């Protein structure tokens, strides 16, 4: 029997939203009904289920890695895709987001799923730059050329819009309040 659930939908250039759905609906129908995509553009949009944290399991010696997190067939039902209550769904036109992270005069590169949180990218970067685990959490990602430090729960895909499927960060130490 179909159940009524809420799912968390993320996508390019928009804040995440809560969408009510029936487990026997197709994911495409849910996104169209919620006004997140139009029926006409449905074929051009990639839909990812779940948040991707593959980078956290990447071996230290891998350079220029890439997530395998694949888009799903949105014509399947939520049940068929294993989408349950409060699962995250991400729609985007970019297959990957190419990320550069600068620190200490070096740059690390990786191609992430758009459904990757800033927390995961930051953890990957701290590991790649071999920061002391005790103090590592004091280092955050700041969008290059700005003072913007996206919050940990933000998805990479929310920060980029196709056709520019890339973003650059500086890894910077959080400022300690003084005075």
């Amino acid at each position, binding site marked *: 029997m179909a159940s009524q659930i809420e799912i968390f939908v993320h996508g390019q250039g928009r804040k995440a939203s809560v969408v009510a759905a029936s487990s026997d609906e197709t994911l495409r129908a849910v996104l169209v009904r919620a006004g997140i995509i139009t029926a006409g553009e449905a074929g051009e949009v990639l839909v990812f289920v779940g948040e991707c944290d593959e980078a956290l399991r990447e071996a230290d010696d891998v350079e220029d890695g890439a997530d395998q997190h694949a888009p799903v067939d949105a014509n399947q039902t939520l049940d068929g895709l294993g989408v349950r209550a409060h699962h995250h769904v991400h729609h985007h036109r970019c297959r990957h987001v190419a990320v550069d992270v600068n620190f200490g005069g070096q740059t690390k590169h990786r191609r992430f799923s758009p459904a990757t949180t800033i927390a995961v990218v930051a953890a990957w970067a701290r590991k790649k730059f071999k920061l002391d685990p005790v103090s590592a959490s004091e280092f955050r990602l700041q969008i290059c050329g700005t003072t913007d430090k996206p919050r940990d729960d933000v998805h990479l895909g929310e920060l980029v819009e196709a056709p520019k499927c890339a973003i650059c960060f500086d890894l910077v130490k959080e400022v*300690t*309040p003084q005075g």
Partner: protein
Amino acid sequence: MEHPDQRLFDDDLLSVAFRTGVISGRWERSDGGLPPAELVWPTVVFWIAAAPRAGAPDRFFVRLDVAAYRSVPPTGRFWDPATKAMLEFANYPKGKPGSRVAMVFRTDWGESGRAFYHPYDRVAAQSHAQWATEQPHLVWDANHTIVDYLTVVHGLLNSGDYIGV
């Protein structure tokens, strides 16, 4: 009747960002041990999970004043639901000397520990005008939500510089 700022606050508690924090065990709204009559708008209480440290609780409660939410930042400090009073300074979470954890949770500044020592806290921000230029990314504006505030406190309570109570 619900105030406009209360309505906005309640809406933000329904957001993906706040609910994801609840589901993952990072925080949740609480009554702080108080009966409803003693917990009236604009006072709100949350618990926030802390990294395990010997002899320290696995969560801390914060009591916040969120008047004029989101136009102005919240302000508040740690709360003790057992005594139904502000947490004794001796039981405050501590950080390594000189760390950001130690600074934000300090109790020896001008406001006598009445507020967190951070730009997201209304009382601290008002008495430190220089922070707006020193830390422009932490200037509170109407695009900020309670999740930003909770994220900062959660981050500090789960930092490698947090050493317990």
